[in-house]
């Protein structure tokens, strides 16, 4: 895993080895431009009539994308079939809700504890679970989901709130700002969380840790024989994933001013799964794309009511079987073919690990 060495490039700036440092391929202008666009967007949107609505949609998109990315990190990259993602989201949400609701903490401070507690919970689940494989992980994480739900419904009153969840949690207050200006501040807060989570996940994927985990996913025997501590790597990955999921849970709780036990509904899990599968399982940008698609479509799908779940299930099944790569690789291929720069001939992969990494870096 000597890939990390290239990151701290020498002062003389030698030729960048793109195969070893794929993140260098993204021009700084693209990233900078996207961030600036993100900052300016609400200022533009407030000028148009449905702007407020679009901003709230974007906030929702940011949070869902964070959760979907975190899930993709362990599911798509790590090959850990964990279904505890929504439960970890709820752990984060409940942590901050209890701190703000029962102890009267400031929402901004309370929210900082959400990811920490979610991380601790993840380590707690991970210790017995992550030594096992596939189907066992599915079962134990589903069990955790179910236990968390039962606890949230029937637990002590300061947690269950009588069975429906905590419904009067203080929302974020920015001084005396109200109305549209407050929405814009909420948007920026969500964006900051999204940017941090995306950046960290991006770096994790392209760190030695990420390379190790994809190597393990693609050939466990090989990875283990190269001295990768499978359990430790998976636990770290699981903890990172839980951290951001919990953070998103904390934000959403204060954004909505409460958290209800309906977060445990299976449809939430399915929505997130759909984001990952439709966008692109095990690709960096896939879950972000998927979140945008699902949240964008959702506004129209409301009209078809109960048919939504039917279509969602069928689409999931069809994509999983007939286009398991999802949409992102298709978009990327089209981009490379018509708009992208000339392809440099990729150096021959030196080892299976490097191969696994080059195969799975689908970022742009």
């Amino acid at each position, binding site marked *: 895993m000597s890939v990390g060495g290239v990151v701290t490039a020498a002062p003389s700036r030698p030729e960048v080895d793109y195969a070893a440092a794929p993140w260098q391929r993204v021009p700084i202008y693209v990233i900078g431009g996207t961030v600036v666009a993100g900052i300016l967007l609400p200022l533009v949107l407030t000028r148009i009539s449905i702007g407020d609505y679009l901003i709230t949609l974007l906030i929702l998109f940011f949070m869902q994308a964070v959760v979907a990315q975190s899930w993709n990190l362990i599911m798509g990259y790590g090959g850990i079939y964990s279904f505890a993602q929504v439960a970890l989201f709820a752990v984060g949400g409940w942590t901050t809700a209890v701190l703000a609701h029962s102890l009267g903490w400031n929402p901004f401070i309370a929210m900082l504890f959400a990811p920490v507690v979610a991380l601790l919970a993840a380590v707690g689940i991970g210790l017995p679970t992550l030594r096992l494989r596939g189907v066992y992980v599915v079962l134990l994480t589903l069990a955790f989901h179910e236990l968390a739900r039962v606890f949230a419904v029937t637990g002590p009153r300061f947690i269950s709130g009588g069975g429906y969840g905590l419904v009067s949690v203080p929302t974020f207050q920015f001084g005396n700002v109200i109305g549209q200006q407050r929405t814009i501040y909420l948007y920026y807060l969500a964006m900051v969380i999204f940017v941090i989570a995306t950046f960290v996940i991006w770096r994790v994927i392209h760190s030695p840790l990420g390379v190790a985990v994809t190597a393990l996913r693609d050939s466990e025997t090989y990875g283990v024989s190269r001295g990768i501590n499978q359990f430790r790597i998976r636990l770290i990955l699981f903890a990172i994933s839980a951290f951001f999921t919990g953070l998103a849970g904390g934000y959403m709780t204060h954004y909505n001013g409460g958290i209800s036990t309906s977060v445990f509904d299976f449809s939430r899990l399915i929505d997130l799964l759909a984001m990952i599968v439709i966008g692109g399982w095990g690709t960096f940008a896939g879950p972000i794309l998927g979140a945008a698609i699902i949240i964008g479509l959702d506004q129209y799908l409301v009209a078809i009511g109960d048919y939504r779940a*039917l279509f969602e299930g069928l689409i999931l099944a069809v994509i999983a079987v007939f286009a*398991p790569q999802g949409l992102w690789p298709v978009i990327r291929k089209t981009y490379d073919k018509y708009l992208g720069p000339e392809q440099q001939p990729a150096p021959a992969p030196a080892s299976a690990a490097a191969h696994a990494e080059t195969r799975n870096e689908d970022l742009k």
Partner: protein
Amino acid sequence: MSTQFVQAVWGGVLFGSVYGLMALGLTLVWGAVRLLNLAHGALFVVGAYAAYWVVSFLHLPILVALPFGVLAAAAFAYLMHIIFIRPVIGKPGFDNSTLVATVGISIAVSAAALLIFNPQYKVVPPVLSGSTIVAGVQITYQGLLVIGTSLALFAIVYAFLTYTRLGMAIRAVSQQTEAASLMSIPVVQTYGIVIAISGGLAGLAGVLLSPSFFLSPNSGFNPMIQALIVTIFGGLGSVRGALVAGFVLGVFESFVEVFYGVGWAQPGVFILIILMLIVRPNGLFGIGEVKRL
């Protein structure tokens, strides 16, 4: 005390046979196809609703509806195999694809059930009505039927796998796919048959259970989770394990329920399975091959 004890044993044996019935299908599919069928609960729902439809819309007796439900679930499972499982057999992403596809199918099925029938709880009439009282505990004849059917099915499946040509083919495919196909066993077709049998078993469970647990579009989910637990407890792919684990877990859950309260039943089972996995990671009768998925 004595009443409570009889109550716990009766409930445990009843639950156990039910769990065993569901787990039998799951474990068969896992053992032969290496497919974790998360749509097993959907097959349960398909069978139960098919029987409900026959009874309440065609006004036929439940004894006609029972085989209809079983066949409907088996046919649905076979269709699922043709459309969603067969295209990915032998492909590298088999685990991912089938996991997501079966989740998707189960969502679609419960949504369809919601659309066709309304969300109200349905009642399927029991095959046998009436009950008797033993030591102060009500023993329903339907419950006895469930236990008897479950035990009989275990015996039939065991004999089928051991003595018939098709059963031997299934075992051959599950042990060595390449060798089996060299012996001119149609591997993919055998997979389809196993999946259909498993669907039929889930459908049967659905029809037999719906009188006691009410029928709703999502009512397959909990039995499926229980069946997963039983399957893992007994060892994935082991028919004997599913039977034993079904009864062990059923009796355990029932005793916890009777003596500590209903709220502790599910946490208790989960704690038991976690302990089990720490002590014996392959389950009671696991074959030790936990590599794929």
